[in-house]
């Protein structure tokens, strides 16, 4: 019990310091958004059906640690409105990426959620459906419920694209930003983080993919429950209590009625053929092994072809037909960005986190600064490998498309 509390207290201190650092983001030197981030968002937009397809979503580096989606044209309209200038701007959806996450593709997962907002606003069919199941709610409650529905839509949109990687990313994000103990508190715009995690988990269960994270080699057998427990402890420590902006029956209403309607819509937006399946995770496991050896994962070889081609060399030198077969075997197919992000998260969970626990919780005499430096180096290395993998995957996609 005391060990658990001590760990929770230590986590609490770490996340408080992260909160403090985030408030200093304005002083961090920021340069332009990486091209890989544009590639990432461009690939997300391709999931959106043609009738509401978005050509472009801007990415803006932000001084605050929050991921947001906003239509920039509305700002311009608001500024010019009072001076009576005719405004007819094209919509300019934009997502905000905290500067500190500029080089960290694993946390770009949250950008997929933000792109979901841009899609939700164009999805009039869903808006009508939600309106139809709300007649008994009063106007302020209706507004709250609609906003919550939008958040749930975006979570499911991101889950269908990224699958377990979104859960891992969201849970980490929730743990960091829940510095004030807000993880169990619903706001007027967002359902509580713990509610959202439950919905994401449910979606993963439906796709038979919850098992992917449960198989991780962490002491806890389920990464999301690990985060959930940490959040719970944190909330207790901060002496925060669960507070809902809505009456309990309405909260139930969100979970039971809304989620089904939204889930159906997201399924129509992102078809089954576009989603990762448990079969893909057999390949992703291979990518994780490659990452742990420090090798790029923008493309992969087919292990069956490799094994059969190895037989061609049993007698040493071979003829041109067999060498062509062998060349086919060593040729690598492109890895999708979603596979890269999932492999990255699994690698982090299975290999990097355990090393961090050893580094920070073992009682060796190394100064903390040195430990932080070595941890930072490890994180930087994985970021670089993933960024390079995204680059090579995109170049291969463009080459193959042509």
């Amino acid at each position, binding site marked *: 019990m005391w060990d658990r509390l001590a760990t929770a207290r230590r986590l609490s201190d770490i996340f408080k310091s992260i909160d403090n650092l985030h408030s200093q983001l304005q002083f961090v030197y920021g340069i332009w958004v990486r091209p890989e981030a544009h590639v990432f968002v461009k690939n997300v937009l391709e999931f959106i059906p043609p009738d509401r397809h978005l050509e472009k979503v801007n990415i803006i580096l932000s001084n605050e640690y929050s991921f947001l989606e906003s239509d920039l044209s509305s700002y311009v309209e608001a500024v010019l409105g009072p001076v009576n200038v005719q405004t007819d701007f094209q919509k300019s959806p934009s997502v905000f990426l905290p500067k500190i996450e500029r080089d960290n593709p694993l946390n770009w997962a949250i950008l997929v959620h933000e792109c979901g907002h841009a899609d939700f606003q164009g999805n009039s069919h869903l808006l009508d459906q939600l309106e139809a199941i709300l007649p008994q709610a009063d106007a302020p409650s209706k507004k709250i419920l609609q906003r919550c529905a939008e958040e749930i839509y975006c979570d499911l949109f991101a889950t269908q694209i990224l699958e377990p990687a979104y859960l891992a990313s969201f849970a980490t994000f929730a743990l960091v930003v829940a510095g004030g103990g807000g993880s169990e508190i619903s706001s007027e715009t967002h359902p509580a983080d713990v509610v959202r995690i439950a919905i994401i988990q449910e979606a993963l269960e439906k796709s038979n993919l919850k098992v992917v994270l449960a198989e991780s080699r962490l002491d806890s057998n389920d990464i999301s429950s690990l985060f959930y427990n940490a959040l719970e402890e944190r909330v207790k420590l901060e002496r925060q209590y669960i507070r809902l902006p809505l009456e309990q029956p309405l909260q139930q209403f969100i979970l039971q009625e809304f989620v089904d309607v939204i889930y159906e819509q997201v399924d129509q937006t992102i078809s089954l053929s576009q989603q990762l399946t448990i079969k893909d995770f057999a390949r992703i496991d291979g990518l994780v092994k490659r990452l742990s050896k420090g090798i790029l994962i923008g493309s992969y070889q087919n292990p069956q072809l490799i094994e059969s081609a190895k037989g061609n060399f049993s007698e040493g030198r071979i003829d041109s037909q067999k060498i062509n077969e062998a*060349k086919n075997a*060593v040729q690598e197919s492109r890895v999708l960005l979603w596979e890269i992000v999932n492999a990255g998260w699994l690698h982090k969970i299975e290999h990097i986190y355990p090393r961090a626990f050893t580094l920070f919780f073992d009682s060796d005499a190394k100064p903390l600064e040195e430990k932080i430096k070595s941890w930072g180096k490890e994180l930087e290395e994985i970021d*670089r490998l993933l960024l*390079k993998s995204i680059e*090579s995957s995109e170049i291969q996609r463009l080459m193959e498309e042509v």
Partner: protein
Amino acid sequence: MVLSDWEIVQALLKEEIIVTPLMNAKKQIGSSSIDVRLGTEFKLIRTVKQTHFDLSVPIEQIKEQVREYTEIVHVEPMQPFILHPGEFCLGSTLEYIVLPNNIAGRLEERSTWGRVGLQVHSTAGLIDPGFHGTLTFELHNMGKLPLPLYPGVRVAQISFHWCQPVSEIYVDKSGAKYARSTGTKDTMFYEDYEYNQIQKFLSKKYGYQSYFS
């Protein structure tokens, strides 16, 4: 001895040599080499801020001088990077290369690009056994017309050479400055042990403070 095509393929199958992404093996694997492509990261030379590398300052300041000597440019896929006649810049391979402890590599131009004056390395063509990482190109346009260089274009080739297994592979060496790189790397001459000695000498002769340990 140089590896022939089937020996290269065999080494790739056994993962003794790794060249990834290998997008089009039939086109990329030649009789005794593998073609490699251009990545998206370039470093342009910027001379406006300094007159020379000053070695009489702490190593952090030398690193800063090197950082200021180049300007990083990211090119999006399918966008050209224009290298004008006479210009020099750094680039890197799209591919990540891994060599075993008994094969060395040699980076060479492809004659297709050599014929219009593109050099991909000036002096540093040897890849040590046990190397891991992307290779940095020293790109130089020796021709008369600007060259549009697109990421993904095959600008160079690597030939492979058998050798007896080395006693210590490149990535394990204490002075392996460019191991496990995933992009275009600046020079790190200041990490060579000679500079320690030079600075000690300068310190003794002219009373400079030595900042190297």
